[in-house]
């Protein structure tokens, strides 16, 4: 049982980062449907830089810090650049957000597959994965077994939770967060107040994409132990679903991500499930998301609404 929960939380980190990034983006009023593509890009460039680093050592000593730091930086920068592309298209050129997002996903998945096909030895990923999954050295006794639930993760899970908590705090309690939310709710009013709508949308989208890209990287490095798999796109759509599930709150998203992680890996942990039941279980996260979406719209509570300006481009001279 404890193994199952740990697995759920580990996988949850991927969803958590993806959804936190998307929440920040959506709070600014940009509905970025390119998140699956962005997560792929993050994973691809992170892994690519890792393999470049490991092969450049020629079998020499791997510096654990660099082995973690280089891919994280590369993943963040590459995904943030994808976010920059999205913001340029939607904020500056005022292109339709849905269409741009879907194009970004197509582009991102293609780019990812290409980058990975250029990697000479994918085995370097699993070499580097060791450092992503280093656990806290802690001697468990009979009575402290339950501590495993909190302590047996690599740095990635803690990083994901910290990022989510920090973003929740920033969004809710700080001036920057207030401005960001006002830009997403009513850009015209924010603009009248002297808030730079363009800058906030650019910033939120780029940082949000960077965070989401880390989710893609951690999925490969932590959950899959460096084994490359083309499942990141599906993870990305689940992360988008999680945004709704968490009603646009990163702190709720922490719990939500663990639930999504549990639902995702449940079929592998329950003995004697048939193919059919596996399929039905895999359907659950989406069904739950729809139910949440419906309930929030029926309950009609203002604080559970999507940002009012979500998906709409702002143009000052338009009425």
């Amino acid at each position: 049982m404890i193994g199952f929960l740990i697995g759920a939380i580990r996988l949850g980190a991927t969803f958590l980062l993806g959804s936190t990034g998307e929440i920040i983006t959506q709070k600014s009023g940009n509905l970025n449907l390119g998140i699956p593509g962005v997560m792929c890009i993050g994973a691809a460039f992170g892994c690519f830089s890792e393999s470049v680093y490991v092969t450049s050592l020629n079998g020499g000593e791997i510096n654990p810090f660099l082995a973690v730091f280089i891919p994280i930086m590369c993943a963040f920068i590459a995904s943030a650049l994808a976010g920059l592309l999205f913001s340029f298209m939607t904020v500056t050129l005022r292109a339709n957000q849905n269409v741009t997002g879907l194009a970004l996903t197509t582009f991102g998945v293609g780019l990812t597959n290409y980058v990975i096909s250029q990697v000479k030895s994918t085995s370097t990923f699993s070499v580097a994965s060791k450092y992503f999954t280093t656990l806290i050295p802690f001697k468990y006794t009979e009575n402290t077994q339950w501590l495993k639930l909190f302590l047996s993760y690599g740095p990635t899970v803690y990083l994901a939770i910290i990022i989510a908590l920090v973003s929740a705090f920033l969004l809710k309690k700080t001036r920057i967060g207030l401005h960001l939310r006002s830009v997403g709710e009513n850009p015209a009013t924010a603009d009248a107040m002297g808030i730079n709508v363009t800058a906030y949308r650019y910033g939120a989208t780029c940082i949000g994409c960077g965070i989401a890209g880390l989710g893609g990287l951690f999925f490969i490095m932590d959950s899959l132990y460096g084994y490359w798999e083309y499942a990141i796109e599906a993870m990305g759509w689940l992360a988008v679903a999680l945004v709704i599930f968490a009603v646009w709150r990163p702190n709720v998203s922490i719990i939500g991500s663990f639930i999504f992680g549990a639902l995702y890996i449940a079929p592998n942990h329950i003995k004697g499930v048939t193919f059919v039941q596996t399929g039905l279980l895999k359907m659950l996260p989406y069904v739950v998301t729809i139910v949440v979406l419906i309930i929030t719209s029926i309950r009609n509570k203002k604080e559970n609404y999507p940002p009012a300006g979500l998906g709409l481009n702002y143009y000052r001279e338009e009425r």
Partner: protein
Amino acid sequence: MNKTEKIKREPLFHIVNRGRDAIPWWKGMLIRAAAIVFALAVCAVIMVILTKENPIEIYKTMFDGAFGTERRKWKLLQEIAVLLCISLAVTPAFKMQFWNIGAEGQALVGGLATAACMFYIGGKVPQGMLIIIMVAASIVAGAIWALIPAVFKAVWNTNETLFTLMMNYIAIQLVDVFVNIWAKNGSAVLSPMSEYGLPIIGDKKYLLNVIIVAALTVGMYIYLKYSKQGYEISVVGQSEKTAKYIGISVKKVIIRTMLVSGAVCGIAGLILVGGTNHNINTNTVGGNGFTAIMVSWLAKFNPIFMILTAFMIVFLDLGASHVTAMFRISSDICDIMIGIILFFIIGCEFFINYKLKFRSFGKGGEAK
């Protein structure tokens, strides 16, 4: 105070909405064509770097990949038919500003219904009867899949973009489940049921599909442009308040339009399963539901232009995959190229809708 006061100058340029004095349509077309030429040039540079071949050679290979043989031409037509069919389906909803990104799922359940008919009653009823049931089942399945988000949107204003997106994945899992039930001895792959497919006209396997979609295109054009319902759709899309004011029931229009949208998606599923593959898997629609959104949007929701945009995307796809096969480079380049071209075309709309007004030099550039 004087210290903080900056010399105010007009910015280098500012952006003006063209609004009423929109540029003539031929200029718009020219801008779009220029964007495509630019995009193709960028793609050519990438291809040349990767293959180190002459770019003209590469474009020749692309044409060869799309039109080279009789078989490739039919393949091109078939792919256009499927993509166009789904694009037609999403169009009325988009015109109404209802972001139905669930076409993938709606087409997939349409296909699933077709496959179910073939699997359960194929051979037990006369072939003509089976085809009628298949057509009805696929249309109803697609329509129901679209109806669910439409009802919630109409009654409670539930966000349709996210709702329809989720419905896609439920449809995919549903197909996965049924394929596992139907597949023999747990192989998880369904063997083709070719004997129960749609009839083949002459010896042209895809001709019927092309005819169906051609008829649908004309039908959709007339529906949107000349029917009362088409008019209501565009009024709701322009302004819901106006629609309410002139007595259009917005709820009714939303639900009715989504039924049409879903039904046409169902037909796309029928074409894919009944008329092409005689088989179904989770990848049957293969992302066409998402591509269709771009096809429809690029054509400005005009069914006739959609033939062009669908042709362009399919041509690029088939051509680029032929290039990658001939020059032995990774086939993922196709997706990257299509992405680049889409970005260019999406971006060029800006120059059609807006005008850059540069600061007039010499007049001192004082801000008003």
